[in-house]
Every structure is written in structure tokens, then in C-alpha cells.
């Protein structure tokens, strides 16, 4: 048994009072049932005969939020597409394909976040509002983590492009700059706005040089005295070397240029060029990668990972992926400064920077309440061939374990079970047996639902489940006196025994009433008649009646004889058959019929004789 790494969280079941009554519990597929027993807390029958209450404790409430259903459905489509995508594509095109899949997942998360936000602001119920708002922040965190994993693991950005991707990541996710920018730009005198320098600073911190320069030019035009300073700073910002995405320069070239530029900035700072303007001086220090200067802008950056990326931008733009961990750890320490411990999100991001994929997945599993995120992310990483076959102690690998958990959770939902089927399909080891167990427990309230479940079972050759479902539906139909429906279900399952049961019902009805019910069924059995002997007999017997009714006596007689000789008539029916034979025997027809009558008589007598012998024989023997 593995050790616990975290204390299990305590869940209080509101209304359940163990001091009043002893409680018992049972595990379900995705929930726990807690029930009050008759016994009091001291083990005697003090609880009294009052009614017991049943509590259903669910870990994952999220699955019932309407808006999240879109996430589950859309991501299901992406998941299936990924499983079906060609494995033959190798190298760059495969990687591009996987990056696209990752982007698709992220856009689905963002769309869901948008909808959830809309739901939060449009609801009047404060409890719902808080639930939706929480969900928005959870989704936002998920997208943040996923995006980082995409950069580091799926795309596996190399030194150079790595920094550019991280800059994009920070610009997209961390701190909302746009509102501030809009406020400043829309004012009459932007350079005099109190937030002006904040905006310039944040642009610089995020490496958005053009936008920073554009704003600075406004300051320059408003303040002619600082034109010289501005020109120099502007020039420095323009010349700053950045890694390129294409192959236009090698890393070494870039590093050389950067070193050169860094020294130039250093010179200007030491010469005191910006001494008269503290804002510009601080910007120059930031450009030089001065940690203290950058840390001063803590409030603007809001998070340690923004600080990390800014640090890298200005001190080590050609950082290699494997070097990230050192910078990440020190950034977090410097930023948090020992004031507060890391939040779960911080731990997860740190694990990502350290390239500890398994740790990321584990932390996310603990922090999030349902398996959606980890199941899909792990599946994607598995497709990138990044997860070693890390076998868990109970046999399946991590990807499969997470998918099984997620799909099982779907099956506990009254409607989302259909999605779960496809997830089980792509779990090679245990998927099938999980599916077999879950699919039997789906309530079948209409025939159409039963047909859908049946189709799922048939497509996967789950014969036992097919038989069982058809039997249940056939029994239901039989109980409701819908013999045609019952027969239809038996035909689907090729269930001869049930077809026999149904035919017996018909024959019984006939014996009681003297006429057939549901002629439209019996007259039109077609090849399904051959499903069981009894059914064939029923069909043929009805045909006999029809022939007789049409006065085609010779054919009727031939048929009756055949029925008697073919051994498909049930013993209980022999009397009826013989009685049917009587009027035929009294017919005055041609010789053909005469011979037949004689045959019938002989046969009937012989049978009767045989039965008598057997009966007497048995009595004597007993």
C-alpha cells in the first residue's frame, strides 16, 4: 500500500449525527451512501424505531453543472479525434498535430470559462454566483497550467523560442493590462495620468517594447526637457535583441549581440544619463536585469512566475529548458520572500518548470475535484510519448488509470454515460471489463434508450450483455401483454428459449379463447419463424387455420399431418390437433384426402397407444 502524501480531507455530512445514531456506509461507483442505523451511539437499540435517513455523499459535484457539460462534450470530440489520428506522421508534422490538439483543448476550456462567467454575472442567486465564480477561477488555473505544459512538454520549445513562448504565456494569463491601458490612452493627457508609468513599466516587464516606446513618445512630446533621455532609452529598447522563431540567427549569435547590448545599457546607466528621471532610470535597470529593480514592481507583476519570465528576459534570454528549474525556485523564493507558503497552483507550476510531469499530474489530481483535467492532459502527454510506462501497483498504467476514473465518473451521471463508453474503448487493459460492469447498470426506461445501449454492446461483441438486456426488455413487454414487442426483442438476441416462451403464451391464449390474438404478428413472421421450434409450430398452425378458413382442405390436411409428424407440436397441444383433425376426417373429398385421413387416424391411434404404454409402464415401475 502506498503511503499517503497528504492528510485526507475531512468531509462533514450535514444532518448526520453519529452521537445520536450509529451510521453505516457503502461505497458506490462515484459516491458513498451513508445511512442511519437503528442502533444508538452506545450500541444498544436506543436509536428507536424512527425513520432512517439516507445520505448520498459525492466527491464531484461539478459534473452536474450545466456549463461544464459543454466542456465534457467538446473535449470528448477532441479526445476521439486524437485517438484516431494517424500515428504514421513522424517528427515535426506529428508534433505540430499534437500542439494543435493541445490548442483545441485550451480553446474549449476558454469557451467554457467565458460561458461560466456569463452565467455568473447573469444569475441572481448568490450561492450560484459564488459557485460559478469559483469555477471560473478553477478553469482559468487549468488553462494556465495546460498552456505551460503545452510549451514545456508538448511543443518542447528549445532555448530561444522557449522564452518567446513564455512571454506569450505571461501576457495572456497574468495580470489584466488592457483595462489599465485603455484608461490611460483614453484620457486627455496620457503622460500625466497617474497610471502612466505603471503601464509603461508593465509593458517593459512583459517585453512589449513597441507599445512601451509608443507610450514613452507621448511623454517625450509633453516634456521637451527629457527628449534626449527619451531618445537614448527609446534607442536601447529598439535595439534589444530577442530570440527569433525562425532560423535567422543561431543562439550564439544572439547571445553575442545581447552581451553587446547589455554592456551598452550598463554604460548609459553608469554615466548617469537617466539620473534626473527616476522612472526612466528604473526602466534602464530593469533592462539590465537588476533583480531589485524588477522586484520593486511586484504589485504590477502579481505573481512569481511573471517575475521569473521577466528575469529570464533581461538576464538570460537564451535559457535552456533544463535550466528553468533553478530560476523558477529562486524566483519563487525571492518573490514570496517567506511571507506566505506556496499555493497548490504554485506547487503545480513549479513541478512543471522542474519537468516533473508525474508530479504535475499528481498535484493536479489532488487539487481538482474531478478527473477531467488530468485524464485529458495525461492522455495527450502519453501520445507525445513522454510518459514512461509507469506501472502503478495495481496493474494499469497512469494514463489508463486516469481515463478509467474519469469515465467511471461520467457513468454516474444520468446523461453523460454515453461519453464514457468511448473513453473505456481506449483503455486497452481494463476498459472492456469496466464497460461491461457499468453498462449493465444503466436504467432503461424507454425502448429507444435500450436500443442505444444494445447497439453499444453489439458493436463491442458483448454478447452476454446483449442477451441480458434483450431478456429484460422482452420480459417487460410480456408482462405488459405486448407479445409482438417481446418477440422483436427475442429475435434481436436470437434467444430461442424466449421465443418458445412467447409462442407458448400465444398458444395458451388460443386454447383459452379459441381464436388467435395479434394475427398481424403471427401471419407475418417470415424467416424469424425459424428461431424456435415452437414459433415455427405457431406459424404453421396459424397457416393451417387460414387454409381451413379458405376451404383449401387438402392443403390444410397435409399441413396438419406434417405438424403431427414433425415433432414440433408441444405435448399439451396434441388434443387440440386431434380435435382439429376431426372435421377433416368427416369431409367427403377425393381419394387423395381419403388416404390422408387414414394416415392421420393411424398416426393418432399409434401415438395414443404409445402414450398409454409409457404411462402404464411408468406406473408399474414406480
Amino acid at each position, binding site marked *: 500500500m502506498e503511503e499517503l502524501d497528504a492528510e485526507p480531507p475531512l468531509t462533514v455530512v450535514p444532518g448526520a449525527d453519529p452521537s445520536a445514531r450509529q451510521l453505516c456506509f457503502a461505497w458506490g461507483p462515484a459516491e458513498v451512501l451513508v445511512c442511519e442505523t437503528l442502533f444508538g451511539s452506545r450500541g444498544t437499540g436506543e436509536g428507536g424505531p424512527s425513520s432512517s435517513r439516507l445520505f448520498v455523499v459525492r466527491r464531484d459535484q461539478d459534473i452536474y453543472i*450545466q*456549463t461544464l*457539460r*459543454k466542456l465534457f*462534450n*467538446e473535449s*470528448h*470530440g477532441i479526445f*476521439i*479525434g486524437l485517438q484516431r489520428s494517424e500515428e504514421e506522421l513522424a517528427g515535426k508534422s506529428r508534433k505540430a498535430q499534437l500542439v494543435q490538439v493541445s490548442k483545441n483543448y485550451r480553446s474549449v476550456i476558454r469557451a467554457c470559462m467565458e460561458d461560466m462567467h456569463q452565467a455568473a454575472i447573469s444569475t441572481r442567486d448568490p450561492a450560484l454566483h459564488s459557485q460559478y465564480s469559483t469555477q471560473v477561477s478553477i478553469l482559468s488555473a487549468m488553462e494556465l497550467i495546460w498552456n505551460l505544459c503545452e510549451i514545456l512538454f508538448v511543443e518542447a520549445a528549445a532555448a530561444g523560442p522557449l522564452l518567446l513562448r513564455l512571454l506569450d504565456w505571461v501576457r495572456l494569463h497574468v495580470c489584466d493590462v488592457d483595462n489599465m491601458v485603455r484608461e490611460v490612452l483614453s484620457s486627455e493627457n496620457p503622460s500625466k495620468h497617474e497610471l502612466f508609468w505603471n503601464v509603461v513599466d508593465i509593458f517593459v516587464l512583459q517585453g512589449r517594447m513597441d507599445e512601451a516606446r509608443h507610450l514613452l513618445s507621448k511623454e517625450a512630446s509633453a516634456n521637451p526637457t527629457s527628449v534626449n533621455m527619451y531618445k537614448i532609452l527609446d534607442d536601447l529598447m529598439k535595439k534589444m535583441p530577442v530570440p527569433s522563431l525562425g532560423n535567422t540567427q543561431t543562439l550564439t549569435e544572439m547571445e553575442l549581440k545581447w552581451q553587446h547590448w547589455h554592456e551598452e545599457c550598463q554604460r548609459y546607466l553608469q554615466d548617469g544619463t537617466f539620473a534626473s528621471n527616476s522612472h526612466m532610470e528604473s526602466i534602464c535597470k530593469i533592462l539590465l536585469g537588476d533583480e531589485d529593480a524588477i522586484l520593486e514592481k511586484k504589485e504590477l507583476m502579481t505573481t512569481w512566475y511573471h517575475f521569473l519570465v521577466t528575469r529570464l528576459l533581461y538576464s538570460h534570454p537564451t535559457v535552456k529548458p533544463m535550466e528553468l528549474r533553478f530560476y523558477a525556485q529562486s524566483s519563487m523564493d525571492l518573490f514570496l520572500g517567506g511571507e506566505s507558503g506556496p499555493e497548490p497552483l504554485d506547487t503545480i507550476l513549479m513541478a512543471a518548470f522542474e519537468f516533473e510531469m508525474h508530479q504535475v499530474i499528481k498535484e493536479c489530481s489532488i487539487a481538482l475535484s474531478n478527473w477531467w483535467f488530468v485524464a485529458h492532459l495525461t492522455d495527450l502527454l502519453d501520445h507525445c510519448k513522454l510518459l514512461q510506462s509507469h506501472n502503478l501497483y495495481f496493474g494499469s498504467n497512469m494514463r489508463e488509470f486516469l481515463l478509467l476514473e474519469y469515465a467511471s465518473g461520467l457513468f454516474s451521471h*444520468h*446523461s453523460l454515460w*454515453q*461519453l464514457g463508453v*468511448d473513453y473505456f474503448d481506449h483503455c486497452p487493459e481494463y476498459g472492456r471489463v469496466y464497460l461491461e460492469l457499468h453498462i449493465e447498470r444503466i436504467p432503461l*426506461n*424507454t*425502448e*429507444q*434508450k435500450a*436500443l*442505444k445501449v444494445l*447497439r453499444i454492446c453489439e*458493436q463491442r461483441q458483448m454478447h452476454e450483455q446483449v442477451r441480458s438486456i434483450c431478456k429484460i426488455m422482452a420480459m417487460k413487454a410480456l408482462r*405488459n*401483454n*405486448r*407479445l*409482438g*414487442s417481446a*418477440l*422483436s426483442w427475442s*429475435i*434481436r438476441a436470437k434467444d430461442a428459449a424466449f421465443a418458445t416462451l412467447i409462442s407458448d403464451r400465444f398458444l395458451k391464449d388460443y386454447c383459452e379463447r379459441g381464436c388467435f*390474438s*395479434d394475427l*398481424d*404478428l403471427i401471419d*407475418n*413472421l*417470415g*424467416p*424469424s419463424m425459424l428461431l424456435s421450434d415452437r414459433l415455427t409450430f405457431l406459424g404453421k398452425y396459424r397457416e393451417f387455420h387460414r387454409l381451413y378458413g379458405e376451404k383449401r382442405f387438402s392443403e390444410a390436411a397435409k399441413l396438419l399431418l406434417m405438424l403431427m409428424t414433425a415433432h414440433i407440436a408441444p405435448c399439451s397441444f396434441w388434443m387440440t390437433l386431434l380435435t382439429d383433425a376431426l372435421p377433416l376426417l368427416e369431409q367427403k373429398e377425393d381419394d387423395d384426402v381419403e388416404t390422408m385421413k387414414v394416415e392421420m387416424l393411424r398416426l393418432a391411434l399409434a401415438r395414443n397407444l404409445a402414450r398409454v404404454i409409457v404411462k402404464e409402464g411408468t406406473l408399474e415401475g414406480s
Partner: protein
Amino acid sequence: MEDVCAKFVSQKISKARWRPLPVAALQPPDVFATGSWDNEDNRISIWSVGDLGSVGLNGEYQGEPQLLCDIRHNGDVMDMQFLDQERIVVASSTGAVTVFRHHQNNQTLSANQRWEKAHYHVDQDTSCGGAACTGVICNNPEIVTVGEDGRINLFRADQKDAVRTIDNADSSTLHAVTFLRTTEILTVNSIGQLKIWDLRQQRNEPSQIFSLTGDRVPLHCVDRHPNQQHIVATGGQDGMLSIWDIRQGTMPVSLLNAHEAEMWEVHFHPSSPDHLFTCSEDGSLWHWDTSTDISEKPSFLHQGGRSTTYLSHNTINQSVVSAWLSNDPTKDRMEITNLIPNQTLSVNTLDILGPCLVYGTDAEAIYVNRQLLA
């Protein structure tokens, strides 16, 4: 494919229907209704589709369906049909049939009338005796419903009791119903039979019974050719499309191997009946196109003015008839297109009116294509 607009709606869609257009309308339909299933809280929703391509106030793509209103529905929505511009008749899995009214002035839905126990098993008074109502068809003010209890009901809107009920009309489940003529209906059942019922006659027997050859595969849907009333199309549990000529014989004229699983709905295009649409549990939606190229017609049909055009139109109709009824569908070219590129879960429903197609899936999404036959 680019003209298809998808929207995820957090409910599995069992039925989608375009609101019928007023008689003299020129523009394409822009409002449709959907019904959901398999939810604890099923809903009937009315959606509006604006102009394609234009962008709304918030920058959202205007072509996306916008929810106008919805209302709770008890039980799964098994079938749905517009009675007129404002009223929708809905068949429920509880055995109830409800008429909802869409109030367009304040965009709300209300339940106008309900027949609570339209379909039931054995005993009407036992509480759990409800049987699902599986099909409903309207011809204002008449409403015909069929169900899992093998019963056929004829209702009249605004009349409390059923005008006529045929108990035990069928020993198996009736899956769908449609009007053949104003006084005759067609039903299909779960033992592969197509039956014609004459509602003028008082006897509770079908006037004609047709069966499939071979295995009695259950039939799930039926539709009649809009102009040629003797041509009927049905879809079966094995995904087979059968075309019947009810003037002759008791067996289908052609059997077309179509889908890999149950065919849920079949529709002739109401104004261009040489187009047929089917959707299935296997996740595909097929467009069957038997319209042949004009250039292939003999040259004498192209000469002259209007009268010849009329003539050629007539002849085209005739050749179309033969296309559906021909024994060799490959001879008269039939183009079959799957309209869904990446199929996943079942397409439960489709509806077509003018150039507009709407379909709904078990993946909780609605798709609208407003430039189908362009």
C-alpha cells in the same frame, strides 16, 4: 461544410424541428424548436438563427443559434411537431402528449393542453402504467399519436377527449406515424411492418399491411414523398433505407444499404423531393440526391420557350419518380453524401425546410446549415 454552425447546448437533443413558414413567405426559416432526452430536467427550447455572416454587438458570430425561450418537459421528448405557427405538439416518454404555445410577443412557452394518459400499459389507473408515446403527426387541428403500447390515438386540438382510439392496434411497438392522405395514416412497428390505416372506417384493422422481405427488422421512421403519394420511405434498425410503392405489392421496391446502425429519421425534402435525408445512431447524416443533370436530357426539351420548360419540369418529375422506384439505383445516378466529417455520437434528429438543415446529436450539440442546396 463551412456553412454549418455548431452549438453545444448541455443537453442531448432528441428532436429538432423548423417552425413552418407562412404560406407566402420568401425568406428561409429562421426559428426552430428542439427537445431533449435523458435528463432529469428535459426541456423544449425555441431557437432563432439570424443572418449568416453578420457579426453581432458583442462580436459573436451571428449565425449561431440563440435561445429564445425554453420550458421544462416531463419525460424524454420522443417526438415533436409544429401544429401551426405557434403551437407545438410533443410526445413524452411518460405517455403524455402536450401542446405547447410559443408566445412570440414576450418570447415565452406555455403548456396549452395535455393528454396525460394518451399511452399506457394494461391498466390506465395503475401509477406506473405509462407507456412511451413514440410518434406524433399533425394536420391542424388533427393530431395522431402512436406509442409503445401499440395504441393509435386521434386527438383534436382544443378537444379534451380523444376523438378516436384504436387499442391494441399493433402487438408490437409502433415507432412512427405519418399522414398518407388526410384520412389515412401510415405506421411502422418493431416487427418490420408498414401499415395503412383508414380513419374513416370504424373497424380497428389496418386496411393494408406491408412487410420487409427476409428478417423482420424493426422499422423506426417513415416519410411520404411530398408529391407522389404512393412513394414511401422507411428506415430500419439495421440502417437500411427501404422505398415502397404502396400501389403495388406488399414488399419494398428498393432496399438501400445505408447506415451501420439504427436509422432514426428519414425526410424527403418538402420542395425538392429528389433529395432525401437520413440520420443514424452511427453518427452520420446522409444526403441522397437523385436529381439528374439537365444537360443529360434529350435535346428537344431545351428548345422553345416557356411551354417546353414546363414540359421538361414535368418530365424531370417523372424521371425522379422512376429514380426512387427503379430497381437499379445505380442506373439513374444517385449521389450520396455524408454531411458529417468527424462522426462520433448518434445523430438523433434532422429537419429540412427550404435551404436550411438542422440536426441534433447525442454529443449535446445542434448544427444548422442554412445554405444546403446552394
